[in-house]
């Protein structure tokens, strides 16, 4: 087994992320982790659904949610998922520069999403005095959406860290799994957001 895992186009395996045992383990481990994350968000969704009408004296969802902003956020995050797919496509073609470029765009879109979310929360708190402490609904809303936002923030830090770290050393069998697992995580966050968009905002606005 060689220490030198750096790639050149001739020796590159079809799936660099799974070419080593460590890579395979990381790939599989992240899938399992996402299984656990699913239960985490399912629990948060369950809590939210149980409390979504428990507004006490505070505002209800339909009074405050503005679908325009949320729609924009959805578009940002969905697009960022797509751009991360492009990045992985370029990873498999061993085109490091293009991969980094698309990941950069992914990060940019993610930051945009997060900025919108911060603005949204700020808006609710100052316009409607709707806070974490207003009612059980408020607690459940900020916790569910906030946990997702926290995941986005963590994902962004992770992405930026590996992008900066590997900017000069290029792609190799050691860091390919790191990129790949990140993209899996990012898709997961995206899927969770689709549920949040439906359950929290659409259902909140309609019913």
């Amino acid at each position: 087994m060689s220490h030198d895992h750096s790639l050149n186009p001739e020796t590159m395996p079809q799936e660099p992320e799974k070419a080593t045992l460590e890579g395979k383990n990381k790939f599989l481990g992240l899938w399992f982790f996402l299984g656990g994350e699913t239960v985490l968000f399912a629990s948060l969704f369950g809590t939210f659904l149980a409390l979504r009408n428990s507004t006490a004296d505070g505002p209800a969802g339909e009074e405050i949610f503005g679908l325009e902003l949320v729609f924009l956020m959805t578009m940002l995050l969905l697009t960022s998922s797509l751009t991360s797919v492009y990045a992985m496509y370029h990873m498999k073609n061993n085109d490091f520069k293009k991969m980094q470029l698309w990941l950069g765009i992914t990060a940019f879109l993610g930051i945009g999403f997060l900025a919108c979310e911060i603005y949204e929360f700020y808006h609710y708190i100052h316009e409607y005095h709707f806070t974490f402490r207003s009612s059980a609904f408020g607690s459940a809303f900020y916790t569910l959406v906030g946990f997702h936002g926290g995941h986005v923030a963590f994902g962004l830090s992770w992405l930026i860290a590996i992008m900066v770290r590997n900017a000069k050393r290029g792609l190799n069998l050691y860091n390919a799994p790191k990129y790949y697992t990140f993209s899996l995580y990012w898709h997961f966050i995206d899927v969770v957001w689709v549920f949040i968009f439906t359950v929290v905002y659409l259902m909140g606005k309609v019913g």
Partner: protein
Amino acid sequence: MSIAAAQKKGFGAVIWDYLTTVDHKKIAHLYLFGGGFFFLLGGLEALFIRIQLIKPENDFLSAGLYNEMITMHGTTMIFLAAMPLLLGIMNAIMPLQIGARDVAFPFLNSLGFWLFMFGGVLLNCSWFLGGAPDAGWTAYTPLSTTSPGHGVDFYILGLQISGAGTLMGGINFLVTIVTMRAPGMTYMRMPLFTWTTFVTSVLILFAFPALTVGLFLLMFDRMFGSAFFEVSLGGNAVIWQHLFWIFGHPEVYILILPAFGVFSDIFATFSKKRLFGYTAMVFATILIAFLGFMVWAHHMFTVGLGPVANAIFAIATMAIAVPTGIKIFNWLATMWGGSITINSAMLWSLAFIPSFTIGGMTGVMLASAVADYQYHDSYFVVAHFHYVIVGGVVFGILAALHYWWPKMFGKILNEALGKLSFWLFFIGFHLTFFIQHFLGLMGMPRRYWVFLEDQGLDIGNLVSTIGALLMGVGGLLFVINIIYTSVKGEKAPADPWDGRTLEWAIPSPPPFYNFKQTPLVRGLDPLWIEKTEGKGEMTAAEPLGDIHMPDGSILPFIMSLGFFIAGFGFIYQVDQKAWLVAVFAGMGIALACMLIRSLKDYHGFHITKEELEREAD
């Protein structure tokens, strides 16, 4: 680190070695030590509880202290004793049983242990800092959200930190079993203990996040003024019960399934027969795990969920009796026609069958919702789950320790002491808990600080306390046995029990790379096959070559320390905002460690072929 450097080290070097180790066998030692320590602590708490209940209206403990004692006894035994002891045994044995050199994520393995340890220490710090949690190990809201002082805060943070560690352990074992089995070790050739480790890990993965969420909600309510359980703001206290039991019921199976695996291996070995109905055993394990997620509300029959929910959960719960029954009969059939050796390991396993059968039967009785209206939260339930947890899990852990002690530590536990401690513990156990079924039905609710005079509960409680003291003596003798063995015990050969599975094919204790050459597996019970049909030892699946091993690291320790510091910060920032510094510092340390881990390349090191050959001489 070369092989030579691993020998003959000073005390400081040994400590440093354990702080930085990523070797699954050493991490197992740590888990066993940590879990053992908390087990003794939890046992001491149990004795205090029983002494308080030795006679009616006793004043040995105050009411508040008593509630702290029961809370900490339950929490400690479940999260800090039983689970880590099992994780320790899994760590030590499972990789050997599948012919692997280490686990998939050695770094995470170490991190998992240190998170558990720091979480446990944090929880127990509460004793010295104004009082332990006092809302029961189930921490039902709003009792837990309104409990004064910081006890429940320690409960929240302590469990959150140690729970994260357990989750990592679970993922690690799953990946290890999927990707790192030796050539020929198909799923349906894995020893039952490996199978139950696998299924248990799945349960950990899907159950713990529910607790994580529950603890977060509790934390937000207590520390940041949210209103999840605050009825005046629309909150709902029953949500906690759902989240807790969606975690809590699978947790029972997280504890008992590995014990089932242990017994399966032990019965086969000491009956000199292969496990009867292996396939049925595997599927029964999976079925139990699956059903385990469908039955959480049987802990909530009296909550007022309505007859439909109660009926559905009652039937689902009863269904679990079927796969469990299959297991019991398969174990009996394994012994039937065999050549049974009875030693300490086997005694614990044999004692398990009638004890656990009683626990399982009372489980079915409890599943009958209307009957449960009487049993619920009475001493009947206390008796039931101690028959399951002690009669199943603790017996399983002790059987496993006697069985695998030679493999883990290279010495055989003293048989005479082993048998003596078994009998005292076994008799004490039945004396303590059998009578409690009746105490419950006679009208004694659980978690009662005192029972009143003239309620017909005196004798039962006295008998129970005497039994508990016997258990205490039995437990103490086991500790003495460990000390005696480590000083004077006989050295163990590689295969002291005429074993059947891969771990007995390598020296006791194994070298740190486990298998010099990865073995080739030709069927279930691979070593037994080689003994009876082959040359008596495993055939190698690869030529002797360099072995790649992971680097040790101090980061897991520091990262856990960071969370520990942040934990204190979270708890005390409620009183004084200055403590937020500790939150940021602690989280900063932990995140910095994560960053270092992510950015630094860890390539590990190689043991060369030459070194391995030299060692063979």
